[in-house]
């Protein structure tokens, strides 16, 4: 199966600091790919490069097997790539519907088409079996952490997206809410989407992922099938960049 999204040889620096070194990364439809790595390994940076927030210094970007240029969040969105950022990127002063359509509002003529947006938002939340929010006209500031995460995910799948990337969606959640979000993540992949899940929690990673990609100090240490590795091996990849014959040799991909 060809990956829906594939990056090759991505380099990215912020001024003198090179954060990503020659990174290869691929994402497949119908699968959850876990992106793991220590704090500061460059996971969020990689995701922001994919989403068009940061321009890459060099490297190739393939979507559906074709080379593409991503220069802005709009470009990524047009391809069907949606990102749920670590800091969630919701506007507290707006309600759920308004947040879900942020920057992509539906209009009728020159005025907002509130009815259509409300209907689409409700349908999307329902398709995700989200029943925890009281009203979709509730301000986001009044939601719990899990509900906010749910809204952010619903916002990402509203657009018939092909790739959904979640940056540490469970980091701030309790046990029950984490389970809910993971269930949602699995359901997205089962619906045929390519899902990327960034997480620090090995239990979460092994519970839902099909593949694991481990970043170590800005280099891709290994990208493997989840069923082919153990917890201990992944932890080793995260902490030292290699594990047995997996991983980096002298800081270069094997």
């Amino acid at each position, binding site marked *: 199966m060809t990956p829906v999204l594939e990056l090759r040889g991505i380099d990215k620096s912020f001024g003198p600091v090179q954060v990503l070194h020659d990174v290869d990364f691929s994402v497949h439809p119908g699968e959850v790919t876990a992106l793991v790595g220590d704090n500061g390994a460059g996971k969020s940076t990689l995701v922001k490069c994919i989403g068009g927030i940061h321009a890459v210094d060099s490297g190739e970007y393939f979507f559906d097997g074709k080379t593409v240029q991503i220069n802005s969040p709009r470009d990524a969105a047009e391809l069907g790539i949606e990102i749920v950022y670590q800091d969630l990127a919701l506007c507290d002063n707006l309600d759920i519907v308004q947040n879900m359509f942020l920057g992509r509002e539906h209009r009728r003529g020159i005025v*907002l088409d509130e009815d259509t947006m409300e209907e689409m938002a*409700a349908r999307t939340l329902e398709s995700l079996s989200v029943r925890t929010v009281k009203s979709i006209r509730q301000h986001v500031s009044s939601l719990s952490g899990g509900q906010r995460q749910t809204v952010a995910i619903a916002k990402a799948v509203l657009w018939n997206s092909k790739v959904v990337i979640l940056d540490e969606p469970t980091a701030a959640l309790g046990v029950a809410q984490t389970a809910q979000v993971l269930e949602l993540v699995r359901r997205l992949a089962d619906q045929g989407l390519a899902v990327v899940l960034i997480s620090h929690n090995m239990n979460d990673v092994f519970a839902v992922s099909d593949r694991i990609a481990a970043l170590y100090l800005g280099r891709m240490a290994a990208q493997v099938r989840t069923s082919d590795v153990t917890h201990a091996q992944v932890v080793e990849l995260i902490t030292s960049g290699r594990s047995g014959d997996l991983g980096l040799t002298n800081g270069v991909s094997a």
Partner: protein
Amino acid sequence: MSQTRVEAPAAAPEGRSAMRRALDGAGVQNISLLIALVLLVALIGAREPVFFGAANLKTIGTAVAISGLLAIGQTMVIILGALDISVGSVAGLASVASAMIFTATTGSAPLGILGALVIGALCGLVNGCVIVYGRVNPVIATLATLAAFKGVAQLVSNGRAQGYTGSDPVFVFLARGAVAGIPTLIWVLIIVALAVHVLLKYTDIGRNIYAIGGNDVAARLAGININRYILGVYLATGVIAALGGVLITARTGSGQPISGSEGLELEAITAAALGGCAMRGGKGAVSGTLLAVVLLGVLTNGMTLLGINPFWQNVAKGLLLVVAVVIQQVRSGERRVGLPA
């Protein structure tokens, strides 16, 4: 009085009275303002029955038209999360410009007005560019242009009133005309207020302005071009301020570099704050600002009727701005530690 955050529930629970829904629609802020207005009117009216005279009501209406315009521009800027304290100077510069262009074109009011509006747009653009490309804090940027624009107005006019527009039918119509019994000045305010209200409430542009004020990072990640919005909002505010300047020219019959426009920024910001615009951005509405403008107009008028020393009136206005913001901060639960957000 607890504020309910739910704006319009998808399905309002049965049994919620129409009264309650009407209250929610109007918002706590507006209700409080209305109550304050009613109390104030009753208080002033009881001591000075002249207050209710048609002539006096007209005076209030025309007096608030200019500051009201600037307050509406300010509402947009504050919702965006910024501030524009240069609006008074822009109005002054536009007033001088309208009269000087009028004179230079041997009496063309349309050209005078158009020229003033273009200059207002340029002033707004300068503000926006300094903020966006110079990375200058909006308060500092517009404090600088407050001085600079005023200086330009004084330079081109030599510090004196310019031209005489008092006999031109267009300017006379603006200053003293009426349509359907309502003074033209008030019509101008109503039309601009309606336009901005529709923009903010019913268009994606307005929605994005709220989003930027609420969380600029989220707005950027959603693909909203924040710089364009900052430039656009400051430009619009400049044009609205210039319109206020044109009205100053019309009312006084000549272009005024300072008189009539100095201090308008304080009134505009006070009205917006009192009307419910959160200083940190993302919250506010034209309706609240308009109510506050009327409240301030009634207050000023009442103080004059009651013979209160105008110096005290300035103290009262300053106090009111502080009180309005204090109320806002208390309601938003801001902690009393360090510099306020």
